[in-house]
């Protein structure tokens, strides 16, 4: 299948390794990955902070870039949640303003083709074993949007259970928010840090070497404290773990 990658703005700039890992996994499975060059951002940060007008203009851009794709993969559960929960409404507003005739239909057409990375593997491609090998002790944080907005359920854990050599340890309270919440992390930095300290405690209690998730924004937050406290525990996007195989090649 030809799968178009929507890397998302923060993965592109801050976590390019997640994108490379997505490419590696999908190509290993025999799929072709394309990267529409004009893509930028889904609009989540603006929308969630109260700048809906600014988020509006990013929808037509997304449709223009990805309109023809057979499937669209996004390695970020919160960005997919943004699209699924709000693009329909944004499209209605654009159409009502008269500036984008037909955008409601176009949006409705594209949304069923948008998949979060683990969701593409488990739900669209029907896979749980992607031929990965990663001999490490790993725990998994259920990113809020993946859990509640996308209903990813056990999908990411199932993928991890099928990784060769991997020892999966259950994270206590894995469904509790890490305290990131986009601009919340700076607007309410103290509360956000208090929430994070609970998460870090739970991660350390697992004795894992690696904490993974389907969303690098949560991981950036968790990683920030793990590194500050010199815990030696690392964070990796789920795709990076699934990209590792017995060839031992690095990305």
């Amino acid at each position, binding site marked *: 299948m030809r799968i178009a990658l929507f890397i998302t703005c923060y993965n592109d700039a801050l976590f390019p390794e997640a994108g490379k890992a997505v490419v590696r996994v999908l190509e290993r499975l025999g799929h072709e990955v394309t990267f529409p060059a004009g893509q930028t951002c889904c609009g989540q940060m603006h929308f969630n902070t*109260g*700048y809906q007008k600014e988020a509006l203009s990013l929808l037509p851009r997304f449709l223009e870039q990805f309109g023809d794709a057979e499937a669209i993969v996004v390695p970020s559960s919160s960005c997919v949640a943004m699209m699924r929960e709000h693009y329909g409404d944004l499209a209605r507003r654009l159409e009502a303003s008269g500036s984008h005739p037909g955008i409601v239909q176009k949006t409705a057409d594209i949304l069923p083709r948008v998949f979060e990375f683990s969701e593409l593997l488990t739900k669209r491609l029907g896979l749980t074993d992607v031929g990965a090998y990663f001999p490490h002790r790993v725990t998994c944080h259920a990113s*809020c949007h993946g859990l509640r907005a996308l209903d990813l359920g056990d999908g990411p854990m199932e993928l991890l259970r099928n990784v060769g050599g991997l020892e999966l340890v259950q994270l206590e309270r894995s469904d509790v928010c890490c305290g990131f919440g986009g601009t919340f992390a700076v607007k*309410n930095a103290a509360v956000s*840090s208090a929430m994070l300290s609970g998460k870090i405690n739970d991660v350390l209690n697992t004795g894992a070497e690696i904490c993974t998730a389907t969303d690098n924004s949560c991981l950036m*937050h968790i990683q*920030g404290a793990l590194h500050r406290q010199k815990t030696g525990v690392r964070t990796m996007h789920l795709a990076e773990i699934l990209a590792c195989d017995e060839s031992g090649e690095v990305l």
Partner: protein
Amino acid sequence: MSSEALNILNHRASQSFATAAERSLEDTQLRKNLRHAATVIQTKRGRMVAEMPDWQELRTSGEAIRHHTMENLDIYLEQFEEACTKAGGVVHWARDAEEACSIVLRLTREAIAREGASNEVLKIKSMTTEEIGLNRALEAEGVHPYETDLAELIIQLGQDEPSHLVVPALHKNREQIRELFMHEMNLPELGEDPQELASAARTFLRERFLRVPIAISGANFLIAETGGVCIVESEGNGRMCLTLPNTLITIAGIDKVLPRFQDLEVMLQILPRSATGERMNPYNSLWTGVWPGDGPQNFHVILMDNGRSNILADAVSRQTLHCIRCGACQNTCPVYQQTGGHAYGSVYAGPIGAILTPQLMQMQAAETLPYASSLCGACYEVCPVKINIPEVLVHLRNKVVEKRSALNPEKLTMKAVASVFRSEGRFRAAVRLGRVAERPFEHADGGGQKWISWLPGLLGGWTNTRDLRAIPGESFREWWDKRKKKVNLR
């Protein structure tokens, strides 16, 4: 609302949530109590919900009933007024808190004169009366209100403010309560066993139940069809207040109405399970008008707006009024679990407070409340009437932003970032610029990875407790360009 109540509300809410929360975060005792209490209630709720095979259907029904009610609120309110009046009650309408307080005061004075009683009233726990600062309004006129709910009594004796919808004294533990009772009730000896504490409160209250002939209550539900009022509670203090006094004054927000008696079938299943983790409340009281020779002979209901019709006018945030005040969103909220209720600067705390308070107060000083959430969605997941709290939070944030001046620094930054996202070229340039701009703050760790541990201004909020990995030298799209070139060369 010009009463003292609003001033106090305003004073507290004029502080930003972030500032108020920082103070709560330093309170070790508070945080220990919060962890304990919230976990206990949440676990009980989890058990009670799990045993219901039709829980999701009940939530759907709950939502449907509340939605239908709000869409036809005018009809049901008038129907309630007619039915309640026919049954012997007197219905009053109050535009705002000031009007509501003055009606209560007038009715109380009339009752005191009629009964030849002293300047005292009994009170059943009611968040609505907390919302309008009724106790302060009564005291200012020389009438002493007695809270009869154990937790509210603790709050009143300690001159404190409630911090939770259902368990207002959640922030207090038994040692603190013991000390308070010993001091306020003049008890030289008192153990800290919950039974002993409850017994001390009972002795203290019983004398008042028997003496004071006037009671003020809130309402959990008003039934439009019958004109009846419903209150659910755990301690029986409510039942005492609803049956012993000769005069009963009920004050309820206009959002409390339900169309039919049968709607209680759904509400009385979802409310106790969500609120206290019980299958049923120990005391479920329903009364309709006046019955000669049985219970209060003078019964008044005050239907209060106080900002609610403004909420009703907003199609997105109207669902705020669906709330049945169970408090489940507070118990599950990871923000509330850290800060407790007082940080929200209002009697309505937690996720529901973060959407209700700014709307009731027309945003005035509560502009930071819609931002007091990481939008994790846990509140929406547990809400028994499916209020999409994250959706309303984001909607209110948009309203806050729209009111801001175009020169607001955050607004200017967000507009500039949006313009970057509208062009691929500008996006590439911005990433390159970011790498250069952050260079002075970078340092390498032992493994050679570059990190940022200090940033100025608002971003310092991040680096105070968290490191930030430096922007990598090559973005994904730069890597992709190179890879494509290599493939093309082959």
